[in-house]
């Protein structure tokens, strides 16, 4: 009651100061010293009252009229602990003191401030109001531990009043620490102060020193001023000296002026004399000019003289030149005259020589004519030994293309009638022979060849073509004495024998027997393509004996088939484009012209040769004999 009256001086609004009213007042008042977690978020505080209707009534009335922590609050009544709901403050009535543990446990660690009324179970209280019944020293007791556990905090102010001894000790400890801190601060400050005081003492000492120094300086100045005064006295003395000296100087000046006047008069005399000198020098100058003029004139005359000298020299040179020139001309004239003489003589000689040459030319031409004539004569002899074309043409439908490269040919063609048997069988031999070389030497060989064939076939009556060639080879070698002599000449031979069977054979068969010495036989059967039968690679005659035997090729042809005997002149012929006529082209020609008659075929072939060759020269003798069986 005591405290109550102290703490609540004016029982406000005339309320009856009942115990319960006090309790409610205490609750609200003391609760204000507590702080809830996140208190600022609480709009309306809630105070719960458990099992105390009167306190509830009081608090309800309070809630309508006052605020808690400047916020409105409401009050809720609970009958039993089971009904408890979350509130900020819970006032537990006296009735519940015995079972306060249950209540406490329900609130365990929730931010609820438990206010109890004289509860003896101290460990389960937070804010325990005491002042009513007990004559205790404190009006309330605070259990800081439980308050902390609930997450609430309490102001140290009321701890001082209502806290436990521990709490008080803590507060005291805090205060001690603060005190210590402040003492420490004080110490540092006092130390600073001491330091500053020392500094001050220092500065005072310095000041004293400085004032001493200044005193010294002052004394110095005094001595110096004394010195100055003495100096100024001496200066005055000196000034008086100076004045005296100036007076002396003035005297001397006057003397100098006098002397100057003397000098001036002398100067005048001098200038007079100078004018005389000028006159004289003018005269001299004039004379010198005259001299200069005269020397110039002399120089001029000298120059004229020099140029005249040069002219004379030049004229001399010209004279010399012309002199030499005329000499040269004379000499030249003489030389020309001589040359002319020589020329005349040379001309005469030339003319003579010309005559001689003309004679010689005539001689040579004549000789040429003679030689050519003799060659032509030789040609007639060659022609004579060749088979008559007419005779052949009477016996066979055939053509002979015989184109010597020069006049006389190294090729020849040969024919022999082998007679008629009783059976009616007729045989003929044909040959085209290509001797080494062309022209006269070839012609000679052709003679020998033709004779040899005549001898072998007509006289010795050898019938088989291979034997004929074999024997021909031997004979030619003998004839030319080729074992011993240097002669290497030979012949390539295309030799055929045609046998027309006797009357008992009713068909058109014609037997062909062919042997070739480095020549082939071309044949074209009626209605077929042209064929080649190759001869043996062995020549007739020549330096090296080739033991290869001449072969005899025997074929059965038909009347109307054609055979062609050639020398190599045609196939070896080159065109202007350096192309050889060649076997292929000949074969082609035979195939394409196979339907022509022999005469037309001849013209065709001659034209082909000409077209191919022109304007290239003929390389070798060309001989082609075509026979239609």
């Amino acid at each position: 009651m005591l405290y109550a009256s102290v703490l609540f001086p004016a029982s406000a609004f005339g309320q009856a100061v009942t115990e319960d009213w006090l309790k409610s007042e205490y609750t609200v008042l003391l609760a204000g010293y507590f702080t809830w977690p996140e208190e600022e978020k609480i709009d309306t505080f809630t105070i719960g009252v458990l099992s105390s209707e009167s306190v509830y009534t009081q608090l309800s009335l309070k809630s309508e009229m006052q605020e808690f922590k400047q916020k409105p609050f409401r009050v809720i009544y609970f009958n039993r602990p089971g009904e408890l709901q979350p509130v900020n403050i819970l006032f537990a009535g006296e009735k519940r003191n015995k079972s306060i543990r249950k209540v406490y446990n329900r609130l365990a660690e929730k931010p609820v401030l438990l206010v109890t009324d004289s509860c003896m179970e101290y460990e389960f209280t937070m804010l325990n109001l005491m002042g009513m019944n007990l004559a205790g020293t404190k009006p309330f007791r605070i259990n800081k531990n439980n308050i902390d556990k609930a997450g609430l905090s309490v102001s140290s102010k009321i701890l001082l009043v209502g806290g436990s001894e521990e709490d008080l000790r803590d507060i005291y400890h805090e205060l001690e620490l603060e005190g210590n801190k402040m003492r420490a601060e004080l110490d540092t400050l006092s130390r600073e102060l001491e330091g500053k005081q020392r500094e001050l003492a220092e500065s005072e000492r310095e000041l004293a020193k400085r004032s001493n120094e200044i005193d010294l300086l002052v004394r110095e100045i005094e001595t110096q001023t004394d010195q100055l005064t003495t100096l100024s006295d001496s200066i005055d003395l000196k000034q008086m000296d100076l004045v005296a000296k100036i007076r002396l100087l003035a005297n001397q000046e006057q003397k100098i002026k006098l002397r100057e006047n003397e000098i001036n008069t002398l100067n005048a005399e001098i200038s007079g004399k100078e004018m005389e000198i000028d006159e004289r020098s003018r005269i001299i100058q004039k004379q010198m000019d005259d001299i200069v003029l005269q020397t110039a004139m002399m120089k001029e005359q000298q120059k004229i003289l020099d140029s005249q000298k040069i002219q004379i020299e030049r004229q001399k040179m010209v004279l010399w030149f012309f002199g030499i020139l005329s000499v040269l001309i004379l000499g030249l004239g003489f030389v020309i005259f001589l040359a002319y003489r020589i020329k005349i003589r040379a001309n005469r000689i030339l003319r003579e020589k010309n005559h001689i040459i003309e004679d010689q030319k005539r001689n040579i031409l004549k000789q040429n004519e003679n030689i050519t004539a003799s060659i032509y004569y030789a040609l007639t002899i060659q022609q004579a030994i060749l088979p008559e074309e007419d005779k052949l043409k009477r016996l066979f439908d055939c053509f002979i293309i015989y184109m010597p490269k020069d006049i006389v040919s190294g090729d020849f063609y040969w024919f022999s009638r082998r007679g008629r048997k009783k059976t009616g069988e007729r045989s003929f031999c044909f040959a085209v022979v290509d001797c080494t070389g062309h022209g006269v030497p070839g012609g000679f060989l052709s003679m020998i060849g033709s004779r040899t064939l005549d001898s072998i076939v007509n006289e010795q009556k050898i019938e088989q073509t291979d034997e004929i060639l074999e024997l021909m080879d031997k004979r030619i070698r003998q004839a030319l004495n080729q074992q011993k002599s240097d002669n290497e000449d030979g012949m390539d031979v295309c030799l055929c024998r045609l046998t027309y069977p006797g009357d008992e054979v009713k068909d058109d068969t014609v037997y062909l027997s062919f042997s070739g010495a480095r020549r082939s036989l071309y044949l074209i059967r009626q209605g077929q393509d042209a064929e080649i039968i190759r001869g043996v690679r062995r020549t007739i005659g020549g330096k090296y004996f080739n033991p290869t035997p001449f072969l005899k090729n025997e074929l059965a042809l038909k009347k109307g088939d054609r055979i062609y005997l050639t020398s190599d002149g045609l196939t070896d012929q080159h065109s202007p484009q350096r192309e050889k006529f060649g076997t292929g082209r000949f074969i082609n020609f035979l195939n394409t012209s196979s339907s022509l008659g022999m005469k037309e075929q001849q013209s065709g072939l001659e034209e082909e040769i000409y077209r191919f060759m022109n304007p290239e020269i003929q390389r070798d003798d060309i001989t082609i004999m075509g026979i239609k069986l």
Partner: protein
Amino acid sequence: MENLLIPITEDEYDKPFVSFDGSTGKCEISGESFPEKTAEFYGRLMEWLEKYIREVKGPIDFVFNLSYFNTSSSKRILHIMILLQEYQAKGGKVKAGWNYDPEDLDLEEDIEDLKTISKLDLKMNPKGGETRYKRLSEDR
């Protein structure tokens, strides 16, 4: 030994191009050969070759590049080939080859004949296309 060089000229179309090198022994005859005086022409070649074999005794690399030769020339060429063969038999280093157009069967046969008779180890080299002599001749 001095070289032997016979170039082809406008007038001398019937003679082949000849180049014999006296220091390396490389010899070449190219072109066509149907001169009137084969003995005279080929005589020079034989003389040179005989001198080379006698005095220099060096290797010979002979290339025939003839596309046509008449009968007289063939005899002279045969002489050359026999000379080469004899030199090889006596121990001389001889290489011989003939470049020819394989389309020209007659030429091929003629070359083979020469090879057979001379018994020279002659390499037959068929070729396609232009040869040097042909170009030279086209210039005229």
